């Protein structure tokens, strides 16, 4: 069973990429969250495309761009709307709306690091059969990071992005096992629907939050 310390550049590449992604997720604000999201889509597309076929690489990459665009538009709108809440229409300054406090960036970074460690342990503990080691490692890490991010986040956007990363991790290994055109198409449709649901949910939350905060 290959380990992280053995000379496998693919394994190291996956681990480093996912690590960078986790750091960016932990430290970024709403507008920049699309960067680690796109990074993981590039990673998944590269892994799956290199093991399977080029068209799948192009399809997954295009999908990643589309989903990232949807999330970017949503995040920008959310941030803009929350920033605009600082003043009212008659110029009275009101306190910045109270936002469900999260535990902060340090906590998020630590949690994602622990999630990566658990994922590595899971990857190392089981034989993955015909699945290449780098694909299995990427899948485990994305599943763990996505789940951890969704569970610790109070911000609905981060919760949604966590769900997207979780799904992406599952699809990494699933596409390797079932790469028929219909499965690729259905998974793509599912990804787009989840992104739209995240966007829709965030907009609904924003409407409800603004309505609650309006005096």
């Amino acid at each position, binding site marked *: 069973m290959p380990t992280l310390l053995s000379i496998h550049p693919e394994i190291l590449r996956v681990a480093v990429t996912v690590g960078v992604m986790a750091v960016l997720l932990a430290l970024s604000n709403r507008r920049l969250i699309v960067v680690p999201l796109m990074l993981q889509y590039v990673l998944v597309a590269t892994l799956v495309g290199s093991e399977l076929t080029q068209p799948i690489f192009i399809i997954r990459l295009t999908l990643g761009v589309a989903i990232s665009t949807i999330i970017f538009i949503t995040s920008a709108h959310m941030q803009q709307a929350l920033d605009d809440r600082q003043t009212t229409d008659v110029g009275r300054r009101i306190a910045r709306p109270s936002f469900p406090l999260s535990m902060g960036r340090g906590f998020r970074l630590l949690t994602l690091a622990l999630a990566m460690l658990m994922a590595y342990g899971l990857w190392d503990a089981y034989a993955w059969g015909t699945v290449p080691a780098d694909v299995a490692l990427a899948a485990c890490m994305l599943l763990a990071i996505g789940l951890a991010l969704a569970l610790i986040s109070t911000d609905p956007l981060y919760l949604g992005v966590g769900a997207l990363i*979780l*799904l992406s991790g599952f699809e990494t290994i699933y596409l390797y096992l079932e790469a028929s055109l219909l499965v690729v198409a*259905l998974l793509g*449709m*599912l990804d787009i629907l989840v992104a739209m*649901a*995240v966007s829709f949910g*965030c907009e609904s939350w924003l409407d*409800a939050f603004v309505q609650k905060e309006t005096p």
Partner: protein
Amino acid sequence: MILPLLAAPFVAALGVWLVRYLRSVAATIAALAALTVAFLALYGIDTAPFIVLGRTLALDAATRVHLAVPMVLLAITMASSARLPERDTAWPLAFAGIGLIILSLAIQNILLGTLILQSGLVVLAMLIPLRSDDPTPINLRALLILVMAGILLSTAAWLIEHPAAGTEAIPEYMGPVALIAGYGVILGAFPFFVWKLPIYRTESSIARTMFGVVLPHLLLVRIIGLQMGELAPAGDMLAIILLNVGIATFIVGCIGALVQRSVSGLLGYMAISELGVVLMGLGSDTMATRALGMTHLIQRGMAIVAMSMGVAILRHSFASDHLSDLRGAFRRAPLASLGILLAGFSLAGLPPLAGFVTRFALYRIIAIENLQWAIALAVIGLAPAWAMVRLAITAFQVTPVPGSQQEPVWPGAWVLVMGLVTLAWGLVPQALAHLPANWASLLYGLTGFGN
């Protein structure tokens, strides 16, 4: 004849989306569209499978019959939704979700079916509205749960499709067990019920009906349909799981209902407890108990829809559904109050309402095997009834809450009619015995018409 059935929900979604700002028109069209889907489900009941791109699309007769039942209930919900708080996007999203779920049931490939089912669930997650006084993102939390359940289902489907993957680490029954677990999460059975409770507290009757009635009904029929096929490697494990999970779900639902202080909370826990009764019936694994389970599933659906619409009416009239705010509810909302009480007591299993008949029959069957358990379940089963008595006492107080307004008449009338149907069914339970034998066996036994 399956293509019109598969296409109808998507056409309805588009049509309703175009007129969504004309609420009365949209609600009417939505109700008619739901009835059309029910009609199409029954019309071509013995139609031949359809093959497209090498994939077979077919719905067996039992699934068609059990598709028609919740669609009629959904039509009733939609018909009354114009006068009640409902987002403009609720109608098209409901139909889009139903279309994907029906497609997932029709495709004769479990792997593809689970992927399409996941898509349908994601669309339904968008149905869940947020409360203006509490913007907790329950919709996104539900989405997360449904994504995880979908992952479990897809993994299970792959394991079932590839039994040669069975090793000591992954025995052959893992696929079926994972499939049951995935369905259990979506159904909201014990211990996965927590994510569903906030949905019952939302403002949307359509969301409550979809998650509380339509989805469980279709998925449970699906599980029974898979019993002889993809779930066969699980053997007797399926029945044991259904029975024990059913008992646990029933107990949790009853105890939870006892401490609720709002009608929506009470509805949520009673819906869970009655799901437990259905699972107990299906898990007892005889034709008689399966018939009891399916009968209870239909009665449960009717009562949940009635109470769900009633909750929306109470919120319209009293701006709240907390018991403390519903003093004298009978004076301001007599139709809805009476309908809620009839439906609620049916869910609580009190005579002479419909829920009592099936519950009592199930208790008797369990008593044959284990008398102590039957007595314990019967005692615990009284808890929701006590909660409903509290509601009744509050509703029949003389002086209504200041500032409350009269109920909208037509939605209230629908609630009362459905409550009276549960009463009539309880008084004359043998009425449906007059159904033609084929239809009765499809409805209660999921057999017949070549099944």
